[in-house]
């Protein structure tokens, strides 16, 4: 089959080491504290192949938490390109689905040059999830655990070997460069992948269908008292937004370094704060927490489908992990389902 290959497990590190020669190789490591973190890989063998979803999501590599937009001075503005080549290994399927949607968000209508610069220089090698976490619910959204398209390269762990699928030109390129490492897949490889997918699908603890939630909201069967109860438990940490692989909001800040000289930055922002929509003269259109809570859920559940035909949630479960008030997409969906 076109775009399908088999890679011997023993050859993975060799391949990655080759890729590292002309790109920054980033992958999941286990920190000294036992957390999974995505970081530049020094030693290929440090990579954690079977790991839970990282915190934060890999959107940080293409839409960093803090990013210089340009420098300004009395001579005008100058912007440097953020085009460092990167290979990001070990990303999960849900995150790949999110990135595919981010590509549309930042690429459509007006193209966000900062995002696209980084994106064009980044190749994601994702691993289909054989073992979902307890907080995962991608299965009800079609954003995982195994993807059919939308990825650059998807690996499926088949024990002693990987089934490698190329989903984009960039992905195919970095396989072809090392063609001697890859074999043609046999039928058994596809059979094994199918088995792995079935076994993974049966491993989900959460089955959430956001469609029923959406219908309920549209038909106004969700009372404001429900949203009030959600808003009450919001600690205003912004974590759900910061960690969401699909949240795109940013703030723009000028740092004045000297008279007439400085830098304009953009930083992740969150709509969970009343200052987010603050207008001139301290007018606060969303003063109550319930407005902000509804705004976030409605955006993801009602307006993403309108704009992109997909929910603004990929079921990665990060908001479940991070919310100190224990209110998150899964909890809200569960209560409304």
């Amino acid at each position, binding site marked *: 089959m076109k775009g399908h290959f088999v890679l011997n497990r023993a050859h993975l590190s060799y391949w990655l080491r080759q890729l590292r020669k002309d790109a920054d190789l980033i992958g999941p490591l286990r*920190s000294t504290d036992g957390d999974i973190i995505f970081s530049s890989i020094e030693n290929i063998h440090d990579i954690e192949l079977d790991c839970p979803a990282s915190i934060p999501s890999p959107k*940080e590599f293409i839409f*960093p938490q803090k990013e210089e937009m340009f420098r300004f001075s009395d001579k005008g503005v100058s912007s440097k390109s953020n085009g460092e080549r990167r290979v990001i290994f070990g990303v999960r399927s849900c995150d790949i689905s999110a990135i595919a949607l981010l590509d549309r968000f930042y690429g459509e209508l007006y193209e966000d040059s900062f995002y696209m610069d980084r994106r064009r220089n980044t190749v994601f090698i994702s691993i289909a999830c054989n073992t979902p976490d307890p907080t995962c619910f991608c299965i009800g959204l079609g954003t995982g655990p195994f993807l059919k398209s939308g990825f650059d390269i998807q690996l499926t762990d088949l024990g002693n070997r990987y089934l490698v699928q190329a989903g984009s030109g960039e992905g195919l390129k970095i396989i072809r460069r090392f063609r001697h490492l890859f074999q043609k897949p046999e039928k058994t490889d596809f059979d094994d992948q199918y088995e792995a997918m079935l076994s993974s699908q049966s491993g989900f603890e959460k089955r959430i269908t956001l469609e029923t939630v959406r219908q309920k909201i549209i038909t106004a069967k969700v009372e404001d008292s429900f949203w009030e109860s959600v808003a009450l438990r919001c600690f205003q940490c912004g974590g759900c937004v910061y960690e969401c692989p699909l949240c795109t909001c940013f703030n723009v800040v000028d740092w004045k370094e000297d008279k007439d000289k400085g830098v304009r930055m953009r930083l992740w922002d969150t709509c969970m704060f009343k200052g987010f929509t603050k207008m001139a003269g301290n007018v606060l259109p969303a003063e109550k927490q319930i407005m902000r809570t509804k705004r976030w859920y409605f955006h993801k559940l009602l307006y993403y489908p309108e704009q992109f035909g997909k929910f603004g949630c990929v079921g990665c479960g990060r908001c479940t992990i991070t919310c100190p008030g224990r209110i998150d997409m899964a909890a809200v969906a569960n209560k409304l389902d």
Partner: protein
Amino acid sequence: MEKISSVCPYCGCGCGLYVHVEKNTITGISPSKHHPVNKGSLCVKGWNCFEFVQHPERLKYPLIKKDGVFQQASWEDTLDLIAANLTKIREESGPDSIGILSSAKCTNEENFLMMKFARAVIGTNNVDHCARL
């Protein structure tokens, strides 16, 4: 891109977090998922605790006030000036005429040194910090 384990500099919870750094620039923060206090969460201050670090308003060099105006000075001159003044005041008015305020925002090591400085170098127990506030 590296992520270095650290602790939030804001409140007494002591949440574990990772500071993301690339080319000597901090690009972000993420919570530690297994930390016994924050377990993958952070409050808004924690999430944003990197922004002030590389702020251009940071103090950049020692300042010495001359005729009511601060002037840039070298470390060497400044340290000499401090040592000379403190020594002089200690000799003229005794060690207890000097007061040291340490900081609840500095590290243990720095607080230890500051109290050692007060007690062993200056020779006074006039050392405190603002734990009360």
